[in-house]
C-alpha cells in the first residue's frame, strides 16, 4: 500500500516537474545598435535582448541560455558542448521570475560581472544577428530569431502579437515605438474580443447563434453517447436471462402512484415531516435478502487472546 502511494506521489511529482512552462518563453524584441535608447545600471547603452513570458503563469527564466552563436543549433553537439557556447542566465535573482505576460531585458555587453542581466556576448550591428534562447537542459531550443543587418540605429526588431495567444509578426520598430521590458503593444493592431463583438455583432445575434450551437453540440454529444449506452445496457440485460436480477423491469417494479404521491408530498414538507415520511417509505420499500439465520464465529489468535490465555494458564498452574 505504501509502495503504491509512493509510486503515485512520484508520478505526480514528475508530472509537476514536467509541467514547468519554460516552453512559453519567447524572444520578443532585440536592439542591436543602441545609441540613445535604454541605459543599463552603469550608464552604458549596450544592445539588448528582451525575453517575454507568453503564458498566464509565473516562469523563472533563470537557468536558461542565450546565445548569438548559430553553431549551437548543430544537433551533433552534446548539451555540455552547447552550454559552453552560450551565456547562462543566473538563477536565484528574483528579477528573472517573470509574471504572466511580463518581459525582461538582458544587456549584450560581454560583461557578466556586471550582474544577472548582463550576457557574455555582444550584438554586432550592421550584420544579420542570430539570437537563440535555450532551455536549462542545454538541449531544447525555446526560440530563435535572426535580426536583419539593415536595422537602423535605435531601431528594434520586435515581435508584435496579440496578448491572448502568441502569433508573432516581426517588424522593424522606430525609436518611438521601442518598448524594452514591456510587452509589445498591439492595441493599435489587434482589437480586444469585446471590441470585436461590439463592432461585428451589434445586435448579439451571432453570439446567440454560436452560443446555442455550441451548448447544443455538447449536450447532443452527451445524448448520443448515453443513448448508445442505454441501448447497449438494455440489450445486455435482454441477453443475460440467467440472472433474474438482470431482467428488464416491468411496470410493476416501479413505485406505485401512491408511493410517488408520498414522495411528492415529502418533498414539499418541512424537515421533520419529510424525515417521518422518508422512514415510513423506507420501511415500506426496503427489501432484504433472505438471511440464513446462522451466525458463524471463527476463532482468531491475537496478542490479546494470547495474553489472556497466558493469565488463565498461570491461574490454573501457579
Amino acid at each position, binding site marked *: 500500500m505504501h509502495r503504491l502511494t509512493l509510486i503515485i506521489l512520484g508520478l505526480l511529482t514528475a508530472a509537476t516537474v514536467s509541467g514547468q512552462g519554460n516552453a512559453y518563453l519567447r524572444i520578443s524584441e532585440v536592439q542591436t545598435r543602441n545609441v540613445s535608447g535604454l541605459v543599463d545600471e552603469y550608464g552604458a547603452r549596450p544592445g539588448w535582448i528582451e525575453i517575454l513570458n507568453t503564458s498566464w503563469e509565473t516562469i523563472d527564466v533563470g537557468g536558461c541560455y542565450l546565445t548569438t552563436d548559430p553553431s549551437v543549433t548543430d544537433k551533433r553537439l552534446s548539451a555540455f558542448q552547447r552550454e559552453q557556447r552560450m551565456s547562462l542566465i543566473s538563477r536565484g535573482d528574483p528579477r528573472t521570475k517573470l509574471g504572466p505576460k511580463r518581459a525582461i531585458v538582458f544587456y549584450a555587453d560581454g560583461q557578466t560581472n556586471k550582474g544577472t542581466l548582463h550576457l557574455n556576448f555582444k550584438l554586432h550591428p550592421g550584420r544579420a544577428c542570430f539570437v537563440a534562447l535555450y532551455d536549462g537542459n542545454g538541449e531544447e531550443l525555446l526560440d530563435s530569431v535572426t535580426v536583419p543587418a539593415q536595422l537602423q540605429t535605435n531601431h528594434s526588431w520586435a515581435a508584435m502579437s496579440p496578448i491572448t495567444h502568441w502569433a508573432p509578426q516581426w517588424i522593424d520598430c522606430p525609436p518611438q515605438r521601442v518598448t524594452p521590458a514591456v510587452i509589445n503593444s498591439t492595441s493599435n493592431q489587434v482589437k480586444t*474580443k469585446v471590441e470585436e463583438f461590439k463592432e461585428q455583432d451589434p445586435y448579439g445575434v451571432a*453570439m446567440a447563434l454560436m452560443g446555442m450551437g455550441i*451548448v447544443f453540440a455538447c*449536450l447532443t454529444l*452527451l445524448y448520443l453517447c448515453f443513448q448508445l449506452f442505454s441501448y447497449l445496457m438494455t440489450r445486455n440485460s435482454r441477453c443475460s436471462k440467467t440472472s433474474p436480477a438482470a431482467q428488464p423491469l416491468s411496470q410493476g417494479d416501479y413505485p406505485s402512484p401512491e408511493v*410517488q404521491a408520498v414522495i411528492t408530498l415529502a418533498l414539499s414538507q418541512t424537515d421533520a415531516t419529510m424525515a417521518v415520511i422518508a422512514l415510513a417509505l423506507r420501511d415500506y420499500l426496503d427489501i432484504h435478502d433472505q438471511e440464513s439465520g446462522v451466525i458463524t464465529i471463527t476463532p482468531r489468535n491475537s496478542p490479546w487472546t494470547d495474553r489472556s490465555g497466558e493469565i488463565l494458564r498461570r491461574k490454573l498452574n501457579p
Partner: protein
Amino acid sequence: MDSLWSFIATKLADFLTYTGFACMMPGNLVMILVGILFIWLAIRKNFEPLLLVPIGFGIILGNIPFKAIGLEIGIYEDNSVLNFFYSGVVDGWYPPLIFLGIGALTDFTALLANPKLLLVGGAAQFGIFGAYILAVALGFEPNQAASIAIIGGADGPTAIFLSSKLAPNLMGAIAVCAYSYMALVPLIQPPVMRLLTNQRERTIHMKPARQVSQRERILFPIIGLLMTTFIVPSGLPLLGMLFFGNLLKESTRTTRLANTAGNALNDIVVMLLGLTVGCSTQASEFLTKDTLFIFAIGALSFIIATASGVLFIKLMNVFLPEGRKLNPLIGNAGVSAVPMSARISNKLGLEYDKTNYLLMHAMGPNVAGVIGSATAAGVLLGFLN
C-alpha cells in the same frame, strides 16, 4: 484641567464623525431596508432561506456606513477580513466549490434513464442568449451583457463566476438578481407554462424511466467531463468540479468525501458567498439605473428560458411516436434551479391530472440545465474574456 476637558471634547467630537449616524447616506438606508426585506422573505415566506438570509444580512453588513480612514474593515479595503472572504468571489473560487457540492448532491439517474432530456436542458439556455440580445439592445457592452444574460441560467454560482470574470462592477447586482429570481421561480414559471400548453398536452403521461446501472452512473461524470470540456475548455472550473463531485458520490468508495463536499464544505462556502455577495451591494454601486435594467433583463431571461424549454418539448413531440411523447410541463425544468423548477412541473402536472407525477421526469432536464448553464458560461467566457 481645561486642556484635559478640551482634549476629551475634541476626541469625542472626532469620534462622533466616525459613527454610522454621521456617515449615513440615504442610499445606505434604502439598502439596509432591502437587506431586511430579503431576510423577511427568507424567514417568513421561506423563499430560498439558505441563500437569502446570508445575502440579506450581507446587504445590511455592507451598508453600515463608516468613515474610510484605513481601519481595514470594509469589504473593498485591502487586508480587511471581509476583503479576504471576498477574494473567493472576486477570484472566482467559491462558485467551483459550490459546484463540487452540487455534483456530490445531484443524482443524474433521471437524465441517464432518458438521455434525450439533455436536449431540453440545452434548449432552455436560450434564456441566456436571448437575454444577451436584450442586454446588447439596451446598450450594455458585450462583456456586461454576457454577465447579465447568465442570470437566465437560473444558476447563482455560475452568474457570480462569469460576472467576476467579465464585469466585476456589476457582480453584486447580478448575484442578487439571480438569487432573487431563483426564489421567485414558483411565481414566474407557471403562467408561462400554462400559456404555452393546452389541456391535452398537460395531461400526457410519460413512460416510466428505465433502471440505470451503477456502471452508467460512474461513467457519466467521466464521459460528461470529457465531452463538454473538450469542446468548451473555458467551462473547466465549473464543469470539472461538478463532475468531480458527482464521481465522488457515484463511485460509492468515496462516500466520506462526497458527504463533506455536499454538506459541510458546501454549507461553509454558501454562507461566505452569500454574505460577501450581499456585502458587495453597497448603495453607491447598487442603486443605479443599470441595476434596474439588470432586474428587468433577468426577469425576461427567466421567462424566455421557461418558454424555450416548453416549446422545445412541443417540437420534440412532433417527431416522437405516440406513447413516447413528453409532457411539455417538464420543459420549464431546463433551467438549473434544482429541484425547485422540477417541483413546479410536478405541481402543475398534478393540478391537471391527479395521477400524473412528473417529478422524476422533470429532474432530467433540471440537472441537464446545470450542465447546460455551466457550458453556456464557458462559451461566453471563451468568446469575451
